[in-house]
């Protein structure tokens, strides 16, 4: 029997579940596959509808983690298998090498000595990063990652020489650890649906068709463009931006469910554009604007007041070259006005939905439904976006509830 709780995933939901359970007095392990905690929200510029920065809440949760001796976290770690029963699970975890040792506290020396540059995955390849790097400025833990796989031995040596002795360890190997836990909270979250799978929206074919997550990175002060939404082709600020809602969502060929957040995310991104420039025209192609509840409805209301934001009820069927260089035309059936619309825009944003991570990277020992969401079982408790599409508020609720369910499993088994 174990009195510990494992949380798989160190994103917003996982962190919440972990701190809430630990503050009940239970020992908690967090396993995160990326090099940093914070997950998907760390890539967001602002939260809707308050337009507040996600790092604000993360900072508090990181402090709660750092000051709570009951929480242990592993980054760059994958769950390989789960066996056993509620109250007594055995979980095998592979911890991948980071290339740096814990005494690395994110100095600048290694980065300065690194020479090669590779596409920066955190910014969806819109800029590059060094061989030794912090995934983003607020990344936690505050320890660099050395890209062992893609860096030449010479460059590693140069980086090592520039850093204090003992900070680099290129000989690190992946190791497997086994945790004995009583309950498992699954908070593996989501990934943006791969827009390249949506043939008619042609994201690979036009430079100036991007995803909503790319816009988040561009709008972020720490992003590839220093906080400015630009056209990838010429790095110029677009004068017209088209938003393609339900890019993959509510579509039986892709994600049959509604991804819940994309309507609000688009409305939020309109505020980024407006803050950037009072003259940018935005065209939002939608099926339904899903801004339910007083708080979201009010936000939608506010955006509707902006006479440079145009709402078109119609699903974008095709994207074709525009008349101006670099521009594209969004082709849709205007279900209200009737007839075919071709709207030329300088930048098209696909409001791609959320695909649960389980759809493509299931963990052995966990059951998933047809969409890839986790099916709850005694002792294996999903929360946040591994359970269903959810915004941040609902994820927090779901994660807090999951923490209690995990505690209940331990209480039941103990007594």
């Amino acid at each position: 029997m174990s009195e510990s709780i494992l949380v798989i995933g160190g994103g917003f939901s996982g962190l919440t579940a972990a701190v809430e359970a630990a503050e009940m007095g239970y020992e908690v392990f967090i396993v995160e596959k990326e090099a940093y905690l914070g997950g998907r929200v760390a890539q967001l510029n602002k939260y809707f509808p308050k337009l507040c920065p996600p790092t604000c809440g993360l900072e508090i949760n990181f402090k709660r983690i750092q000051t709570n001796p009951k929480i242990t976290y592993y980054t760059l770690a994958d769950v390989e298998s789960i066996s056993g029963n509620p109250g007594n699970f055995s979980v095998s975890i592979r911890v991948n090498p980071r290339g740096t040792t814990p005494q690395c506290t994110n100095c600048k020396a290694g980065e300065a000595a690194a020479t090669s540059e590779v596409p920066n995955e955190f910014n969806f390849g819109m800029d590059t990063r060094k061989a030794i790097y912090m995934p983003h400025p607020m990344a936690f833990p505050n320890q660099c990652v050395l890209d062992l796989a893609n860096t030449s031995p010479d460059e590693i040596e140069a980086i090592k020489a520039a850093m204090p002795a003992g900070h680099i360890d290129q000989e690190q190997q992946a190791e497997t650890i086994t945790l004995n836990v009583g309950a498992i909270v699954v908070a593996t979250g989501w990934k943006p649906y791969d827009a390249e799978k949506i043939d008619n929206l042609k994201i690979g074919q036009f430079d100036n068709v991007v995803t909503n997550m790319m816009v988040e990175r561009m709008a972020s002060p720490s992003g590839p463009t220093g906080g400015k939404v630009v056209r990838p082709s010429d790095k110029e600020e677009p004068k017209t931006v088209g938003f393609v809602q339900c890019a993959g969502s509510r579509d039986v060929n892709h994600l049959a469910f509604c991804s819940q957040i994309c309507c609000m995310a688009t409305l939020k991104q309109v505020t980024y554009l407006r803050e950037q420039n009072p003259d940018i025209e935005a065209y939002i192609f939608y099926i339904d604007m899903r801004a339910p509840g007083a708080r979201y409805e009010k936000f939608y209301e506010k955006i509707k007041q902006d006479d440079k934001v145009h709402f078109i009820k119609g699903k974008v069927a095709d994207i074709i070259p525009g008349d101006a260089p670099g521009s594209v035309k969004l082709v849709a059936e205007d279900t209200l006005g009737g007839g075919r619309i071709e709207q030329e825009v300088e930048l098209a944003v696909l409001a791609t939905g959320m695909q649960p991570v389980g759809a493509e990277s299931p963990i052995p020992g966990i059951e998933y439904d047809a969409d890839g969401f986790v099916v709850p079982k005694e002792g294996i408790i999903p929360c946040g976006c591994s359970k269903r599409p959810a915004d941040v508020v609902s994820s927090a609720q779901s994660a807090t509830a999951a923490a209690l369910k995990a505690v209940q499993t331990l209480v039941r088994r103990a007594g």
Partner: protein
Amino acid sequence: MSKKIGVYIFTGDGIADAIDVDKLVELATGELGCALAKTHPDLFSPEGLAMIKADCESEELNGVVVAGISPRYTFDELNIPGVYVERASLRELVAWSHEIPEDAENKDAQKEHVQELAEDYIRMAVTKVQKAEFPEPDCLEDASDKILVIGGGITGMTAALEAADAGKEVTIVEREPELGGFAAKLRKQLPLGPDFSGLQEPVVADLISKVTGNSLITVKTSIEVARIAGVPGQFRVSLKAAGTKSEWDAPVPLTEEELVDENGKELSAEDQKKKYDEKNEGRKDYMEEDPNAEIHGAVVVASGWRPYVPGDEEFTHLGWGNPDVITNVQFEELAKAGKVKRPSDGKEVKNVAFILSPGAKDDDADFPYAGAVTSLVALKQAKYVREDNPEDGKAFIFYQHMRTPGKYEYFYKGIQDDPGIFLTKGAVTEVAADGGQLKVNVENTILGEDIAVDVDLVVLSTGMVPTTKDEPVINLAYRQGPAFKDLDLFDGYCDSNFICFPYETRRTGIYAAGAVKRTMTMAESMEDAAGASLKAIQSVVAASEGRAVHPRTWDFDYPDFYFQRCTQCKRCTEECPFGALDDDEKGTPKPNPSRCRRCGTCMGACPERIIGFKDYNIDIVGSMIKAIEVPDDDDDKLRIICFACENDAYPALDMAARKGLSWSPLVRIIPVRCLGSVNVSWIKDAMSSGMDGALLLGCKYGDDYQCHFVKGSELCNLRMDNVAESLNSLGMEQERVKLLQVAIDEYDKIPEMINEFAQEVLDLGPNPFKGW
């Protein structure tokens, strides 16, 4: 008692290049009288940290200053029993943020500035170690972990079952004679899980039997809460028969309007007391203890909602007022009773129109207090029409936006497959009586034309009004009154303003769940109930450990009050964002440790400077300010104190430093728990010690406040008026003190904000009282 202090200076990461670390060693062991001072090139390595620990033992140190990387990055090795450790940020706040370009003209002068900056941070840190004491947790003894759940609907029952499942005793208080709430009034309900495509038999009966069969749960029906007094872990709950008056009903303080006379002049204390007594006649004083109160540790508010009933003048274009135009709740009642019959003539209905958005062509919003639930309920109720008349029943749903988020899309799809349910986006412009029928006119439909349908009944998808809009519900016997504060910001919902922390309320130990918080489906409400139960149980754990709840969950300290000097000005009791303080007959504050969040707003508010924490108080910060060396004869070396909110502004400074952004070396930064904790005396201390300006960096305030303590930065801003006055009275420019709002991600802007202010101070010139 003077501490024996060791100072450890990290020389790596560019620190030794930026400053003369040997001089820091000299400063520490010389002027500052520390027992020892050492440098280390890799201080935060296991060897470096082990050295500190070993010294503490061998040299019997009881205070340590670790000067190096930002204190935001913690090291378990520095938790040394009996040793107070303070961190000074030489890397982020000095070296990285004050790099001098190779080709700078006045390099030596600049270097001198940076050196002085580093020295001041060492002085401040040593001063803090010298003055700070270890917190002693104020543990609540005999804390009860019994949970009170207000409301016996689906949310309340779930909350109770979830808490009981975790082994806790629970009392459910339900005003109605039966458990079940609205959930008991449904014919069918929305699916709680897969398969999502159809309706589900109500789960409420099952829940009721689980609740009544659970030995840990006590159910009290036809009962309501008169008052809740006391503190998390020891709430004293007075109950009463529903709908009756009780002498234990919570007293209600005078409103701002009631505190003044007809001319707007504040009433005398005596008159206020008289008015208050009149208002609360028959009620016991809020501090009086009910001997029959039942002790509970924490509270879950699951009081739910009431139907939005349109006023007589509302929605007349939709036929409101016609007996056959009804709300969704009225329709549910009819459907629960059997085959739906028309209110006007009792005729069975075959054709029903559901209207989701009342705004005709002008407005595509849903009804007030609607949400995804109202879309979903319309779909559900359309299905009733089909159940009642499988052959020829027709349901028409007119919406502007069909809001069926997430997996409810599958439910929507299931409904769309029904050939008797017609759905279209459209603006309902008119509902008119037409020979025993109702004609519904709809424009701008996706069918491409305007349509008119004849129906037997029209159902308006009206919203769910949270009970907290109408009444306090929690009926607290607190100094600040019976209700949650400022719920009008959320249209009366008992919501949290925090996206990340939706359970946060301004009353510790009391957590809301379900439709009182937001329109929610049953599935969401049930999940939310579990979350609220956890928070309730957890608040009792914190109270018994003497620890703060969110956000300072690591904090075992609690503010001390030096009551002998209290002037009963009531500022602390009034300003506490969390209503932690009550007061006695004389108006002396009565602390309630387990309600307190340790933000220090009371400390900031106190004009007598008698409130403080063991390692964060007026004297400590004041002494740190006075420890800063202020040259009195150099116009280039002005000094600016900067109080930076440790939650947001301070991390932003760290990020700026990491990015190599610089700010003026004249500025000395002191992290504060919240701007609310900044006492005006600190600004006066700075000015009287000859400093030239004071900058306060805090979170955004206003309706979308980002302050983790809700009111801190806003209250601090209000205090700025006093500061301006006192500066003016001294003949000093009020522009020397400034408060700026900054978000954690604005690290790209924060150096500029500081520099602009520094320039303004330079332009004003030295503090006229410098050197006095």
